């Protein structure tokens, strides 16, 4: 198993439930999420900055 720190930018979603799904889908591209947070919001671009640590086997 390996741990990785990753960053990603995701689009703002219509609902918090959709946002959660979008975050899960984005992180699954990198590995199994261990810890994550949305760290900032760009209201103009309607994007969110995501930071996370994931694991891969």
């Amino acid at each position, binding site marked *: *198993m*390996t*741990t*990785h*720190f990753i*960053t990603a930018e995701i689009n703002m979603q219509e609902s*918090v*439930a959709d*946002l*959660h799904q979008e975050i899960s889908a984005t992180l699954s591209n990198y590995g199994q999420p*261990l*810890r*994550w*947070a*949305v*760290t*900032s*919001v760009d*209201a103009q671009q309607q994007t*969110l*900055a995501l*930071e996370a*640590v994931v*694991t891969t086997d």
Partner: protein
Amino acid sequence: MVSLGVNRPYVVVLLIPTGIGASIGGYAGDAIPIARSIAAVVDCLITHPNVLNGAQLYGSASNILYVEGYGLDQFASGKWGLRPVHQNRVGLLLDQGIEPELRIRHLQAADAVRATLGVSMTDYALTDTPLDVGLHLSSSGAAWGTITNPDSLLRGAEKLIRDGGAEAIAVVSRFPDEPNSPSLQAYRHGQGVDHLAGAEAVISHLVVRTFHIPCAHAPALQPLPLDLDLAPRSAAEELGYTFLPSVLVGLNRAPQFITHSPLRPVDRIDGLWANQVDAVVVPDSACGGSAVLNFSHSATRLITVTENQTQMAVFPNQLQLPALRLNSYLEVIGAIAAHRAGVHVETLVSHLSSIKPIP
């Protein structure tokens, strides 16, 4: 005449994420007074190790539940419940990378907590390789971390559970000594971000995610030279040779996780579940975490504290999260006491407008 109590327990979750430079709670257990105060006005306070760990000092009360961050995220999602316990057998896992004398200091700290506080502990274990912790500071200013040998961590935890009968795991990893680093100097003076925090969270999250039992972490570091300008908020971590006592005290009575799938009928009765949480309290700028977003789907009230500034920049209005935004934790304690008493906080003002008809 016997009065039957049918009051619903008032449950609050207090979140101050680690490694985000929270001006209150981002140092050496400096949020313990807040936890103790909120616990005095609720039936049950659920919070995480960063809030309650003050190295040699700790905060504990019979109605405070010490829940590791990954477990708290799962609890908030509704997937896991919490089952309070009378006590856990705590297994101590030491990083092989800790030098012999510092290892002995940790074993002595464990013996002290056993003899003076009566905490139950299994025999200890060493990891089979050094864990090799890596620290990262992200562009947001938050502290994150990785470890080179996570499998060694998990093998050690498994050994404690399987061979030692551990019901909770205390991990101690060797962290790099950087006594002259600007970030450490700032931290010692009550400023900046705890550089170690992100890696600590990753370590305990790995154990909880894999084994579904309580876990918490203490870093192993060489003692620092005397600093005459040491901030009160950071002082608790410079009283001794280890950060271990608060971790052992927290794990002593940390609730077990209910993770059966499908749930048994007794799990719903015995356990505490997210839909029983009345309020979640978080710094106003740190609303982008998993637990907050999960609670926002539910009837749990979100209360944010603007005075508690962090490196994060995710405010409730940006995500359309309905929130009671208060300035200080003192106001939070008042708002919670009022809500629990059935009093609407908006009535606690000198002038109250008359009730109006629905348009």
